[in-house]
Structure formats: C-alpha cells, structure tokens
C-alpha cells in the first residue's frame, strides 16, 4: 500500500482525500473548516484526525494540495477588442483556474484604475493586439497601470512588438512576459500564459494567502482548485497511456455562489454548410457563472430562468417560490433536510442552474438563407455530439434525482439553436473526488483515471 494525501483548501471547507495509489482505491475522505485566518494547519490537522478515525493511522508517502481559499486566484484582465483579445484573456484566465473579477477592453480609464485598485487582483493579465498589430492600446494600458503603486504581478501576453516596452513602462512592478494570447487573428495561444499564471500562484500567492505554512507537509504540487478539476476532467475525457478515457465530456459543478462548467471537446463545425464565427475556443474550456448558484446567487437563477419556470418545475405557486428564494438567500447554509417544499424548490433551482450555465457555455447555431441555399453560422463550441456529462455540487449529490437534474444540460427543443449534447450518459461525483484526482493525475495519471472511472457513479442514457 502506498497512501497519498490529497487536500483541497476550499473557501469554507478543507477537504481531504486519502488514496492508495498501488491498490487504486480511495481509503477515505474527510473535511473540516478552513482556518486560513488563523493557521491553516489547524483545520488541516482536524481534517486529518477525522480522516484517520475512518482509516486508522496512515503514513503518507506523498501529499498534494489545491486551494481556492482566501478568495481563490483573483484576476483582472485587459485586452483590446472585447470579442477578440479581450475574450482570449478571459479564456486564458478561467482555464488557469482563476476567478475573473474584472474584464476590461480598449483603453483603461482613470475610473477603471480606481476599480482595479479596489478589486485588488492577485494577478493582472495585460494583452491586446495581434503580433505586429496594434501596440497603442497595450502601451497605453501599461502606462495607466504604471501610475498606480505596484500592487500585484502583471502578466504581459499581447502584441510581441510591445511586450518589452510594457515591461519597461511598468518599472518597479513584478512583470512576466509571455507569448501573445492571440498571435494571429483567430488563433488562440493561451497555454504559456496559463503555465505562467500557475507558477505565480505557486511562488507568490500561496504565501500571501497564508497557505505557505502548510507547505512543509506538501510534496510539491499546489494549484488553484479549478485547475485541478480541469486536469481531472481532461484526463477523464482523453485518457492516458495504458488507459482509455471516456471521450468528449462536459462537467458541471453547481455551487452555492457560482456554477462552473467544463467542456472537453473540439466543438468545431462538422458540416460543410456551416460557417464558424468568432474566436475559436480551446479543447479544454472552463466557464464560471458568477450569478448562478444555489444560495448566494439564488436570485441569479430566478432572474435568468424566470419565476414562472421555477414555479412550473417545482410545482409551487410563484408567490411561494419568491418567499422561499428570499429565505434561502438569507439562510445560505439551509439544506432541505426532508422538507418537501424545499426539496422540490432545490431540484427546480439546480435544474435551471445546470440549464442556464451549460447554455451559456455551449455555442449557438444560427440559420440563414443565402443565394447558395441554407447556411448555418456557428459561434462557440458545438457540443451536440458530446456523450458524457459529469455532475457534482451539493444540490446534485444529495438527492436521488441527480439524473433528472443533469438532463437539463441536454439539448432542448425550446432552445433549438443552443448546441448542447443531444443525449448523454451521466456520471455523478458523489464524494467530490474530481479535484483530488486532478492533483493525483500530475504524478499518477493511470491510477487517477481508473479511480475516477470506478468511483464516479454512472447512469445510462437518459433519453
């Protein structure tokens, strides 16, 4: 037996997963309150005691951790055109596991700087212009940032012609120059920037967030939690040497404040009569819906879907829905606990959270008629052929109706132009192992993949 400890320092809970890499099995999971304000090791020690109560004493050979504690990795981006380098910067940050708290396009203004000062990002991503293209905007924005007191590291990943000049303008700042996120029109090159962001997270932000005290215990890997989940879902989809993946997939994590969606699929048009518009999206794409969540962001769900639909799905009168939604927003730790009304409402809310978040993540198809006949214009990823959906999040795992909720990720005749999967198998992550398996995958991909395939609960075709 070779026990490995995997830790997820969450914003509320520190979750521990102990695995036996040789036996490819999960030994146990436990959690305790995250104690980042005092000493992060307190919560960790408590979690470990709880874990060892189940498993007996364990001598861990290795230990890896990810973190979204103390606000996670908060980033602000600035690009040139919103749909082009602006979007490339956003995609790069989200894919690096960041929480994007501000997105700017064109030239930064004094008011923007005021906001940025207030937002206090952990990292600022400065981009704009294709290589050899516009330099004016990124240089202006570097100049604007330079008027502030140096507060955070800046990653420069715009027009290469201007990169070094930006660095000079930002004298006294911690500046990292990366290849352009959009070197040519319509070409996305975000991996080098993402790697840099993770390195900064590791070297600098961990300390600033009081996580460094725990590093004595850690072997070496430390990453933002969404980054670990992204690694896990990518491994699950693609497989690794010696073990096949389950193929293209989407994963949905419905939380209390946000809903994260991951897709692992190429998603480009297959038909000859389809024209692709907009920035091509990465195979491994992550989006976060900051207004869609079961408690803190419960109003966002109702606003996006409409109170009529919540009422219709839950079977509760609209007035009662409004009352209960207000109640849940106030009592964010309230679970249904057998209350029939709340159970019905939570199921409706979770279904609509899944529907809204996946619809926003997936691409759309528009039908037009040209002189050459019918033509389709696709924007974003075509996920209609994706056959696997992975779901997690409290409201989905603490109910018997997980599959019914997950179905809302699928294609719906009511939104025929939304390119969501036509039919899919549903995999449920009941014990929150995705982040842990992502951590494990950097060292033991085969074991991590086989454990995921074993531990995730699979349900057959839902249609």
């Amino acid at each position: 037996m070779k026990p490995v400890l995997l830790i997820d320092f969450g914003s509320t809970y520190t979750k521990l997963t102990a695995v036996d890499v040789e036996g490819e099995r999960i030994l146990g999971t436990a959690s305790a309150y995250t104690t980042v304000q005092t000493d992060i090791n307190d919560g960790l020690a408590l979690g470990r005691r709880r874990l060892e109560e189940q498993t007996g004493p364990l001598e861990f050979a290795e230990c890896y951790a990810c973190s979204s504690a103390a606000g996670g990795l908060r980033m602000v981006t600035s690009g040139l055109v919103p749909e082009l380098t602006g979007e490339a910067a956003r995609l790069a940050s989200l894919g690096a596991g960041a929480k994007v708290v501000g997105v700017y396009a064109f030239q930064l203004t004094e008011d923007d700087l005021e906001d940025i000062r207030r937002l206090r990002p952990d990292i600022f991503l400065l981009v704009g212009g294709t290589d050899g293209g516009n330099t004016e905007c990124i240089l202006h924005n570097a100049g604007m940032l330079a008027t502030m007191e140096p507060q955070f590291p800046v990653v420069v990943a715009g027009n290469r012609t201007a990169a070094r000049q930006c660095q000079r303008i930002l004298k006294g700042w911690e500046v990292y120059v990366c290849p352009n996120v959009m070197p040519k029109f319509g070409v996305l090159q975000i991996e080098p920037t993402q790697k840099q962001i993770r390195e900064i997270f590791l070297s600098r932000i961990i300390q600033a967030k009081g996580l460094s005290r725990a590093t004595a215990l850690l072997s070496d890997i430390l990453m933002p939690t969404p980054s670990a989940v992204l690694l896990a879902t990518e491994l699950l989809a693609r497989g690794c040497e010696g073990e096949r993946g389950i193929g293209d997939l989407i994963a949905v994590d419905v939380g209390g404040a946000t809903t994260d969606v991951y897709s692992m699929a190429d998603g480009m048009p297959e038909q000859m009569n389809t024209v692709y518009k907009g920035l091509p999206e990465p195979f491994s794409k992550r989006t976060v819906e900051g207004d869609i969540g079961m408690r803190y962001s419960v109003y966002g769900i109702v606003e996006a879907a409409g109170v009529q639909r919540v009422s219709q799905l839950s079977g509760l009168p609209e007035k009662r829905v409004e009352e209960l939604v207000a109640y849940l927003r106030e009592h964010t730790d309230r679970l249904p606990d057998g209350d029939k009304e709340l159970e019905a409402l939570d199921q409706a809310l979770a279904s609509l959270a899944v529907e809204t978040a996946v619809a926003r993540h997936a691409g759309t198809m528009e039908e037009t008629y040209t002189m050459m006949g019918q033509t389709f214009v696709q924007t974003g990823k075509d996920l209609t052929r994706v056959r696997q959906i992975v779901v997690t999040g409290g409201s989905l795992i603490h109910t018997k109706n997980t599959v019914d909720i997950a179905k809302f990720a699928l294609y719906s005749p009511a939104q025929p132009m939304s390119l969501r999967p036509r039919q899919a198998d549903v995999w449920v992550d009941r014990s929150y192992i995705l982040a842990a398996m992502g951590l494990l995958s950097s060292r033991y991909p085969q074991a991590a993949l086989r454990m995921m395939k074993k531990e995730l609960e699979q349900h057959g075709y839902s249609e």
Partner: protein
Amino acid sequence: MEQRKKKVLVIGVIGADVHAVGNKILYHAFTEAGFDVVNLGVMVSQEEYIAAAIEADADAIVVSSLYGQGELDCRGMREKCDEAGLKGIPLLVGGNIVIGKQRFEDVEKRFKAMGFDRAFPPGTDPQVTIDALREILHMDGDEA
C-alpha cells in the same frame, strides 16, 4: 537591419455571401504580393472587419461581394470605422457589387459617396487591386 513591417490587409466576403473561391484567390494574390493578410473568409459582418482591423492594426480593408447585395451590406461602414477609431483607413470593394446592368461609373460614384476609396468592377484582375493598394498606401515599389 530590422525588416520593414509588411502592410496589413483585412479581407473577406461581406454579408450573407458564401462565395469562397474568389476570397481564397485574393488571399493568395495579396500574400504573394508581400502583404500580411488577415482573411476573415465568407459571411463577414462590418463589425468583424473593424474588430480585426483594430487588433491587427490594419493598413486597409478590402471588401468582396459577389451576390449583388454589396451596396446594402456596405452602407454605413465608413461611419462605423470612424466611430471605432479607424479614421481614414482605406476601404476598397470589389466583385459583383450591384445587381443588373448598370454603368460602373455610376456604381463607383455611389460607393465613393459611401466613403469607399476604390470600387472595382466584376472580373478585375487581382493585380489591379494590388497596384491600387500600393498607390493608396504609398508603397514605392520596394515590396515585391
């Protein structure tokens, strides 16, 4: 010696027009002639030309239209360029830009009134457009 920066063109077929062949020929002809070409392909909206021209710091926009609706599709493009900060960017248009038998001089006049620098009749050799671009962009024969 640093190589002199190539002139950047943004090209594409405007509107609900899917004629892809001429677009590819132009892409190759312009590239061959020493331009750096951002090709947006078919079914391009005015906004897409403008967004690409901003990011790539383009020197000119070359609009193709083959299906006869060019006049409608091009209307307001100059004003949008002005609005987006691309003041004075050369706009060129060519193809079957209007329907029916019309005197091209009249057609050209209308496109110039819309703010286009040049309009080319059907069957124009790419070389003609290249020469026009060289003239507009003051390239004194030093690039290919």
